Each structure stands twice: as structure tokens, then as C-alpha cells.
């Protein structure tokens, strides 16, 4: 294949792209409203700037009932959770059943991670659309695990009574709340790296929207029906 070849291949299946962008919206809602909820009773001695949080108008809420827009934040958080959870279930079910996870995220191990991390840090790691290096695989699996952890700790602090076993599993209400915060922190760190890499390798962005990439610089997605590249 040459650089002038204009044939395109599908890199990201439609389900992956759709759930990716729904997840982006849901995550923004959960983080923005979660930060406002944090502000109403912080565990550590700091607050998030209100301008980057989601919730009721702070001045009006303060004026009317002495709080900083927590009601609106909770409404967003407990609506966003449905979007996040349902979308996440669709993604995970697709990922497992279609072989997408196995094909894209495995195998991965410490030696491959170190090799690719060193290559990336010295700018010698090539990027081929649709193929994930060991660092990417580790980060994607890690953020997926963090997402599962957020749902579970979220359930534990939403319902420490009805789901008391879950709260117990996470060390009780207060510890579950702390883990929920740490999970958010991990996801925000992931997002910083994730978005920074899109800025560094901008050709990845249109591919995540259209799903297609020039054949000469991409690896086609797995064909879910036949278990091999389409």
C-alpha cells in the first residue's frame, strides 16, 4: 500500500463509537455534579471551583436556602448515573460478546507495558489507528475497572442501608465515599492523558467519530460476526 491509497477501513465499530461519546457526556455530568456534591461536605480541605461544577445556581440557592446548589447537582448526578450505567452495560456486553475486548485489550503484561512506555517516552512508539499498544491497553483496562469501581462505590454510598453488604465490602460508608473520590481522581488523571494524546495525535479524533481511517495507516476492527478483521 502507498501513501496515496484512498481506500478506507472501519477501525472503530459503531457500537464502540456511540457508547464512547455517550460515555463522554455521562462522565462529564457525573464529574461536574459530583464535584458540586463534594463541595457541600468535602472530605479534604478544598473545594472545586463552582464554575466547573454542575448544579443549582450558587448565589440563588445560597440566598433562598443557605446551600450552594446541591439539589440541582444531586438531580444531575442521579440522572447521569442511569445514562452512565446503561451505556456502560451495553459497552461491556458488546465488548465481551463481540470479542472486541479480547481483540483490542489483550494480551497485556508488565514487560510489554514497560517496553511500550519507554518507547513512548522517547517518541519511538508508532501509532497505528485501531491498534492499541501495551500502555494504551493497560490504561483502557484500568479506566474500565475504575468505572466499575465508581458504580459499585456509588451504589454503596447511595444505599448504605439497602446495599449494606456492598458498603461493608468497601470498609463502610465513609471509606466507600473516600474510594468514590479516589476513583474519580483516577478517571480525571486518565482523561488528562487521554485528551493530551488526542492533541498530540489528532488523526485519532475523526476516526472515533466516523469510525473510518485510511487503510494504509490503520488496522481494521474485528468483524463481530466472523471473529476476524472485517
Amino acid at each position: 500500500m502507498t501513501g496515496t491509497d484512498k481506500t478506507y477501513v472501519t477501525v472503530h465499530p459503531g457500537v464502540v463509537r456511540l457508547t464512547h461519546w455517550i460515555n463522554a457526556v455521562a462522565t462529564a455530568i457525573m464529574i461536574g455534579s459530583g464535584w458540586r456534591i463534594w463541595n457541600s461536605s468535602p472530605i479534604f480541605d478544598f473545594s472545586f471551583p463552582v464554575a466547573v461544577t454542575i448544579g443549582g445556581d450558587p448565589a440563588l440557592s445560597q440566598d433562598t436556602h443557605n446551600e450552594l446548589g446541591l439539589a440541582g447537582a444531586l438531580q444531575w448526578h442521579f440522572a447521569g448515573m442511569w445514562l452512565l450505567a446503561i451505556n456502560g452495560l451495553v459497552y461491556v456486553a458488546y465488548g465481551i460478546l463481540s470479542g472486541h475486548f479480547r481483540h483490542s485489550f489483550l494480551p497485556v503484561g508488565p514487560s510489554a507495558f514497560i517496553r511500550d512506555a519507554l518507547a513512548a517516552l522517547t517518541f519511538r512508539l508508532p501509532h497505528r489507528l485501531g491498534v492499541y499498544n501495551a500502555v494504551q491497553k493497560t490504561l483502557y483496562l484500568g479506566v474500565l475497572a475504575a468505572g466499575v469501581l465508581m458504580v459499585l462505590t456509588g451504589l454503596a454510598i447511595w444505599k448504605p442501608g439497602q446495599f449494606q453488604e456492598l458498603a461493608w465490602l468497601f470498609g463502610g460508608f465513609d471509606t466507600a465515599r473516600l474510594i468514590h473520590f479516589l476513583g474519580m481522581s483516577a478517571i480525571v488523571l486518565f482523561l488528562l492523558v487521554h485528551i493530551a494524546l488526542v492533541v498530540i495525535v489528532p488523526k485519532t479524533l475523526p476516526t472515533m467519530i466516523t469510525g473510518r481511517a485510511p487503510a494504509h495507516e490503520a488496522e481494521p476492527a474485528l468483524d463481530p460476526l466472523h471473529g476476524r478483521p472485517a
Partner: protein
Amino acid sequence: MTAPRDSKDVLRQGAVRAIERRSFLKQGLSLGALTLFTGCDVTDQDSVQYALNAVSRWNDRVQAALFTHRLMPTYPESAAVKDFRFNAYYGEDAVPKIDGASYKLGLSGLVDNRKPWTLDELYALPQASQVTRHVCVEGWSMIGKWGGVPFRTFLARIGADLTAKYVGFECADGYYSSIDMASALHPQTLLTFKISDEILAPKYGYPLKLRVPTKLGFKNPKWITAMYVTNRFPGGFWEDRGYNWFGGV
């Protein structure tokens, strides 16, 4: 009971301005932040708020479906905080001061016997105590020890219609709230006179508080002056300001 009426009037007129829930939230949502994050153009705030309210009502139904009479975790007495946190939408100096000698709990709605109850009559009922966790909607929580009459015992005693949907409460500070009948009948729901083995101090809701360990703190009304059983949705002080009504933990 003139003081409560006064504070209720003050509340309605000024201290907390009677801003309708819908207009408050319509103006209130910081959608700019969402726009910033997602690049979406969210212009129709009315329909966004309508959707959020609908999801909140849906969450009420989900929580009611999840609710069972399983007991909330209890703790050793040593875990109970002695100097429990004061909590209201106003300062500690503004708490209602109620005269116990002339106090009467008013009853209305779907109950057979609506005779008001004096404190002595309430104190004569069989009592229980519990060490449970109070979970605030803000995120903090605190373990305390409360004592009083199991609420289901009281509901049976007054001949309440236990098939009705709601039990509502009115408080001396203008606060009001309501809970579902299933939660009212939960064995740990307590019509409370005591905290840390002592009669409730004024700041903790003297003379009467409802302790509902299955619900968030704002569903535990203090300074209760009247209660009623009804099938008509009663709402609540915070609930009418956008907080989730079921408020279960």
C-alpha cells in the same frame, strides 16, 4: 402555640423566600458548565429541568421498589456521638423553644382517633432505643443513640390507616416533610424523645423528632407539632426545593 405560627409566617414571607420550585430550578441550573464539558448547545433549560424532575420521580419509585424492612446496621453505644451536630436551615440561636407542659401533638387525616397527645401520654408508651448512622444528603454522616416509641406502635395506637400512602409532618420552625407508609412501618423508625439517653435538647428537636434510619437526615423532622396520614402527596421543605423525595439510604 403562637411561636410556631409566627416562625412559619416569617419563613413564608422573608427568611426563606417562597420561590416556586420550578422557577428556582429553571433559573438555577448551571448549564454553562455542561456546555463547557460537552460542547453541546443546551438552550432549552425548561425541558432539561422537566426531564431531571421526571428522573427524580422515577428514582423515588426505584427506591420504593428496593426498600425492604431489613434492619439498618446498628453500632455499639460507644460509637454514638455525644455532642451531635446541630443541623437546620438557620442558626442554632433561632431554634424553636417549645413549652413541654402545654405541648400537644396534633393528629389529622386518615386516623381513627385524632385526639391530640400530650408529652406525658407519649412518654407512657412502650419505648425502644437504637444506635444508628444518620446520613446527611450533603455527604457527612454521624452515629447517634436515639430513644422513643417505635413509630409503627404509635400508628397502630392511633388507628392510622396503614394502607394509606404517606405520613406527613409539620414542625414548629415551619419545616415540613413526609415519608412513605412502608418506611413509616419499618421496625427502626422511631418517634423520638431522647438523644444520648437524655431528653432532646431544644437544638435537637425538643420535644419530638422522627428518627428514620432508612432515610437521609432531612427526612428526620424535628420539633414536630402535627402529623397526618394521607393518600395525597405531601412533599416537604427540601423536597419542594428539588431534593429527591424518597431520600432513602
